[in-house]
């Protein structure tokens, strides 16, 4: 179990991390998700021992490792741009961690070679050991980097944007494969990504970060279905946001009451967040949100409709079943928000 306690780090005047607390369970696949500048890579590098915090502790299984260098932490680290040693063959790259061990701890040469070949088999690159990194594709290189990290039998695997440099197709294949490999090996793993789809598909739990702080920790399901902050709601999945006012225990969208759980919001300004598909068309009846249609696109089996909310200068996107005829641009459409979440914005009216 990895425990991070009150971790803070500044780069000059820029606060990269502001008091991070986090538990990583044994065997879990954890994603650190956030936009650039959110501190996710810094957190990963501090856990690795490639960077050191200004305050706070890092513990591996109850043992304080905050001051330990990367070499003494038994972690495997995979870099976005692979960081393969280009003057060495693939097999020598994989064997590197074993070959630099002190005499006495270093296995005999034949055994190192056998281990490297075994790991290359594991990452499905058996027989390519004699090649140089330049002779491999991006996806293959990243698998070599993974085999190299696994060679030292780390207690923790850390991956920094591992698919970031790959093209879309390879990325998808590699990520499925990595998910399966993790399932088989059960090695505690943390990976950093700015791609929410990647985080939701791969991880057991997702840590959403913004501006050096953790916004939410939870399963992909919880992160997507029950975002706990406006940031998470915006960042994960598609989301619309409308300004509302809370008065007398109810939310109002320009003076009309809306049925939505208050989610702890007190009287004042708030934001109403809802997904494009959590909306139904309700004609012109009273109580519907009047929408001026500004764009219609076909998206799979649905119409993606862009519309301006009458009365306020806000555009929202909704999905309606393509069973309906597509509304014409410039016409009015009444919609009903079926599921939404309310977030206090802080500023008072």
């Amino acid at each position: 179990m990895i425990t991070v306690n009150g971790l803070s780090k500044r780069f000059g005047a820029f606060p990269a991390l502001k008091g991070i607390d986090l538990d990583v369970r044994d065997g879990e696949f954890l994603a650190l998700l956030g936009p650039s500048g959110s501190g996710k890579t810094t957190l990963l590098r501090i856990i690795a021992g490639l960077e050191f915090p200004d305050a706070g502790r890092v513990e591996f299984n109850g043992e304080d490792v905050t001051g330990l260098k990367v070499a003494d932490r038994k972690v495997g680290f995979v870099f976005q741009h692979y960081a393969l040693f280009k003057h060495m063959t693939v097999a020598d790259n994989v064997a590197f961690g074993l070959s630099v061990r002190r005499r006495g701890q270093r296995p005999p040469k034949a055994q190192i070679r056998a281990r490297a070949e075994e790991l290359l088999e594991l990452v499905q690159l058996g027989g390519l050991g004699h090649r140089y990194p330049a002779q491999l594709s991006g996806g293959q290189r990243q698998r070599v980097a993974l085999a190299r990290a696994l060679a030292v039998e780390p207690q923790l695997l850390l991956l920094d944007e591992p698919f970031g440099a790959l093209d879309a197709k390879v990325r998808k294949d590699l990520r499925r494969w990595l998910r399966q490999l993790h399932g088989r090996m059960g090695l505690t793993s943390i990976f950093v990504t700015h791609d929410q789809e990647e985080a939701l598909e791969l991880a057991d739990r997702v840590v959403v970060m913004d501006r050096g702080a953790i916004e939410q920790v939870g399963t992909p399901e919880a992160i997507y279905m029950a975002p706990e902050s406006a940031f998470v709601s915006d960042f994960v999945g598609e989301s619309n946001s409308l300004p509302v006012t809370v008065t007398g225990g109810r939310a109002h969208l320009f003076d009309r009451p809306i049925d939505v759980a208050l989610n702890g919001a007190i009287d004042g300004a708030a934001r109403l967040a809802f997904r494009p598909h959590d909306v139904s068309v309700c004609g012109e009846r009273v109580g519907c949100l009047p929408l001026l249609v500004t764009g219609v696109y076909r998206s799979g089996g649905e119409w993606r409709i862009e519309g301006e909310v009458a009365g306020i200068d806000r555009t929202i996107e909704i999905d309606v079943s393509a069973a309906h005829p597509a509304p014409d641009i410039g016409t009015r459409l009444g919609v009903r928000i079926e599921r939404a979440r309310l977030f206090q914005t802080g500023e008072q009216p």
Partner: protein
Amino acid sequence: MTARPATSGAARFALIALAIGFLALFLLLPLVAVFAEALAKGFGAYAAAIAEPDALAAIRLTLLVAAIAVPLNIVFGIAAAWAIAKFDFPGKTVLTSFIDLPFSVSPVVAGLIYVLLFGAHGWFGPWLRVHDIQIIFAVPGIVLATVFVTFPFVARELIPLMSEQGRDDEEAALSLGASGFQTFWRVTLPNIRWGLLYGVLLCNARAMGEFGAVSVVSGHLRGQTNTMPLHVEILYNEYNFVAAFAVASLLALLALVTLILKSIVEWRFDYQRGGAGH
């Protein structure tokens, strides 16, 4: 691709002719002249001029100075480039500009600096005299001046290369349990080897060919403190043209060998960079 305008053919020809003409006039012709003058009285005179004891002493001294200055600048150059490329620290930009100082200052001034410091009337002159240490008008001064003027070559070559390579490879090696020394020897050095070799070649060429700074501190003692370039000048001033050009031809040969090696290194360097994939 669209067809090129008709004029570009003529323009290209003119440019190429100009470049080749310029090279022939200002570079090739003097080079040929050096060898022609050196061999003007036959190969026997040429060999005798080089085998002359003072000439041999000058060659030995030049080799000695290069053998000291080049390794020192390899160490300094790698250390400075490593610090600048891989770490952030206050005063980094100042250090970077200081590395260029020997390029921007006249070699004569570089020599005078050492005279000012270590000469008989210099800052450390009295102390040196008391301890019977001779720096100026002796070999140590020549070495110091040469180290000074050749310092930027290795560092200049390595800084952009190491900056571009970033820290990932070193961090990967460290995360795999390598020590600092193993990381340098097995990862950093192979990554920079062609750039380093290129810098060393240029550094060596300049160390052997330096005239201005060395001239100021050498004292021109025949057979003792004369390097090859200084020896050439002395012979020339004595109207001993065959001998002057014979020794000069050795320096020209060094330049040619350097050029050829440089081309080979450049070719390998590009190949390695291009094939690296990132």
